[in-house]
């Protein structure tokens, strides 16, 4: 009987997941974004439920917040670029050089850190970067005793690049693997040396995959607050949002500031879609 009523089947299958999603997730998001237009009464610290753009005026007007947004976006961009550079050789090796056995080993080696122990991997860097820690002794061993990385924007750049690197390697590997061998051979037959083939054939064909990977590296950096608090003393969008919510208890302002990375990401996704990133995910 059920088989004949297809709409009933669809309804039965879909009602639980969409119901959950609408109520728990989209409902919560609406509550949050709605509260961005409310205000905190400075005297009573109570949320005033009247529509206002005051939070956004503060965000746009105060140069402190502009600096924080620029720093966050700048580091996210630097991390994305670094990860693209680091990911390319290993992804290329996995896709075009390694045999099947080495390839599956490498795939697993990249996949494991992607899915597990985000916090532990950040913590490991905190241990490495501490005074008299492994990084310091490594730097003085190679003759750079006075270079200080510990807990700065530089350390944040290194650690973010480290944490999100697998998210760049895997899409890029998949993208490079899809390039037909015949195109590379054609380029060589036509006199394209390694460098030219790389620049004129491989890179343009790998661009959608690079864009796909960059969505992760950029978005994940933009929204993070754990790494900045553990690795540096700099203010990041995530920290300010977290402190406004948890320490200052100013949920309307936290919500307004949390919209900033979401808007930036929406813009980024539009560009990435132009580059064909969604087909390469």
């Amino acid at each position, binding site marked *: 009987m059920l*088989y004949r009523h*297809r709409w009933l089947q*669809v309804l039965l*299958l*879909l009602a*639980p*997941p*969409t119901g*959950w*999603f609408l109520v*728990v*997730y*989209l409902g*919560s*998001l609406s509550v*949050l974004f709605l509260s961005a237009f409310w205000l905190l009464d400075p005297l009573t610290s109570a949320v005033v439920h009247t529509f206002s753009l005051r939070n956004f005026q503060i965000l746009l007007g105060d140069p402190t917040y502009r600096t924080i947004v620029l720093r966050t976006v700048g580091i996210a961009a630097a991390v994305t670029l670094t990860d693209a550079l680091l990911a390319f*050789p*290993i992804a*290329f*090796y*996995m896709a075009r*050089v390694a045999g099947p056995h080495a390839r*599956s080993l490498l*795939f*697993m*080696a*990249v*996949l*494991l*850190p*992607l*899915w*597990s*122990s985000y*916090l*532990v*991997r950040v*913590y*490991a860097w905190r*241990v490495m970067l501490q005074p008299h*820690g*492994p990084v*310091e002794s490594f730097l003085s061993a190679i003759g750079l005793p006075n270079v200080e990385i510990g807990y700065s924007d530089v350390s944040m750049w290194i650690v973010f690049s*480290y944490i999100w*690197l697998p*998210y760049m390697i*895997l899409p890029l590997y*998949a993208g490079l693997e899809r390039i037909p061998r015949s195109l590379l051979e054609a380029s060589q037959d036509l006199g394209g040396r*390694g460098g030219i083939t790389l620049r004129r054939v491989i890179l343009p064909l790998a661009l959608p995959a690079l864009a796909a990977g960059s969505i992760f590296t950029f978005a994940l950096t933009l*929204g*993070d*607050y*754990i790494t900045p608090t*553990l690795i540096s003393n700099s203010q990041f969008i995530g920290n300010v949002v977290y402190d406004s919510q948890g320490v200052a208890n100013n*949920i309307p302002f936290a919500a307004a500031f*949390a919209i900033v*990375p*979401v808007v930036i*990401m929406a813009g980024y996704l539009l560009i990435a879609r132009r580059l064909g990133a969604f087909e390469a*995910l």
Partner: protein
Amino acid sequence: MGRLGLRLATGSVLAFLYIPLVIIFLFAFNADRGQSWPIRSYTVRWFGDALANGDVRDALLLSVEAALGATAISLLLGSLAALAVHRFRFFGRETISFALVLPLALPGIVTGMALNATINTAGIGFGLVTIIVGHATFCIVVVYNNILARLRRTSSSIEEASLDLGATTWQTFRYVTLPVLRTAILAGALLAFALSFDEVIVTTFTAGTDETLPIWILNHLRQPNQRPIVNVVAVAVIVLSAVPVYLSQRLSASDAGGLSG
């Protein structure tokens, strides 16, 4: 780039990925309470101390309970959504995949704050239930992707054959569809478990004063006297979240690799 250069670069990137993890393993066996490098002598006593620590045991138990709960909910909801999207054409079908991935794609702090605001407004007490709800929300997509990928690679003719041979819809599901999906379901469940087990950002907003294992690490890593135990717990989290991922990958080894397994 020469082949040797490529090999060197690959090796360096692998070293970059794994050296911090090796270092944390070594520090977990460091006999010295201080954390200076290089390590002078090794011990296993911190593992015993960590096991004897009541807070750590409670946190481990809470993490496992939360991961099991989140996995169960995402298994149910993720497979229902995957079956619906694969079987039927309906209004809004294209947006389901997009909507389900949002909790993973949007910053965790946004998901966390949104859930926190709702839990506060609804007046629900923070604890195991709210942790599970938060984790399930972003774990659904993992199960969904695994099962949908398997369904798409499975020919629908075997189900049609079963129905043609007189099996009921339920019998077809129980004896044909489910066995085909079994490893995909298991792989999705393992990934969901791992994702939940070491999640920290959303959890900080949904746990209240309860501590999962990652939250315990976060709360104690600044206390110098707790550092040896934090190192041991960190190693435990690496192992307990890596093993399910490894098993999951082995289960779907025949699948073409993608981010979502």
